[in-house]
């Protein structure tokens, strides 16, 4: 009556269903984990601040980063991807987000650390090429002084983001603002 294939089918269906329920359960349990992340990031030094040939401002920084992400880890956590990004507003863009440094934390033991780094990705602004032509005695003069440089004297916010990547289930993203920094007026 109940052949081998029939039994195997029932068994496989049941185990797949059970596995699915377990995965969903693990993911749901994750959302009860309230994490309190402590982090401190500050800019130690501006290594380079210049204007590229295409008009974009470029900044290289040294950062001091100390984070404690141990509370973000649960038994369903495969890794935590952490990165520091700057956020600022310019006349052209309502929001600029630029990642400066990132790191993959494989387990809870490595989730608390302090490090000094130079930015892995350069802070390159997107210059506003608002070239305003105006004529003086038949000479067209392009005024791009006002809008070319966005970063001189700019106050930027440093934000620490973390992305909890689970063994299975929903991914969790969160962030905290860590500090703000004013970029110098003068190019180096």
């Amino acid at each position, binding site marked *: 009556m109940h052949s081998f294939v029939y039994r195997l089918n029932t068994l496989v269906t049941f185990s797949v269903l059970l596995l699915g329920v377990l*995965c969903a359960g693990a*993911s749901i349990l994750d959302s009860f984990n309230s994490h309190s992340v402590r982090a401190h990031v500050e800019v130690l030094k501006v290594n380079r601040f210049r204007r590229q040939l295409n008009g974009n401002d470029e900044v290289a920084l040294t950062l001091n980063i100390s984070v404690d992400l141990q509370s973000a880890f649960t038994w369903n956590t*495969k*890794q935590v*991807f952490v*990165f520091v*990004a700057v956020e600022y507003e310019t*006349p*052209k*863009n*309502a*929001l*600029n*987000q*630029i*990642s400066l440094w*990132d790191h*993959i934390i*494989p387990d809870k033991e490595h989730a608390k650390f302090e490090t000094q780094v130079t930015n892995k*990705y350069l802070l390159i602004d*997107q210059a506003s090429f608002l070239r305003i032509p105006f004529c003086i005695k038949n000479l067209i003069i392009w005024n791009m002084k006002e809008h070319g440089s966005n970063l001189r004297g700019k106050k930027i916010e440093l934000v620490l*983001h973390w*992305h909890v*990547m*689970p*063994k*299975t*289930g*929903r*991914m969790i*993203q969160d*962030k905290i603002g860590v500090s703000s920094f004013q970029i110098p007026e003068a190019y180096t």
Partner: protein
Amino acid sequence: MGLFGDSLHSLRSLEIRQAFSQAVSLGIIVASALIIWKGLICVTGSESPVVVVLSGSMEPGFKRGDILFLHMSKDPIRAGDIVVYNVDGRPIPIVHRVIKLHERQGTGEVDILTKGDSNPKDDKLLYARGQLWLQQDHILGRAVGFLPYVGWVTIIMTEMPIVKFRFG
């Protein structure tokens, strides 16, 4: 003799009935798979709500054969999001993380730069020739959920010639 013929007849009608019921249940399976797929497209707002990771550029987070669930919400894309994007001239979409984002004043148009977590360089070389940024319409969705290994089924189906020959 009459008795034997009768039972043969009833057996045959049972066979036909069984064949019909098998065909119907197969139809139900196919239809429900289609309903689930289209339903997911509706709910998530992404035209391909489930994707299989094919390359190792996001290791160790995502390995080949893992499945990602995409969502295309109204929330704007932000740095750190893992997005799936299409590049003109490339048949297969790419799953990478947003590392730079510029959102215009007023219009809200975005310029996005992505990078694979385990790649040394950002994706500018992967984009179409002359393309520096991704725009909103390149994005297929944002990864919100993750399921390991399940995608191997489709990888084996599409890449192993014997299996392809037998089933497809």
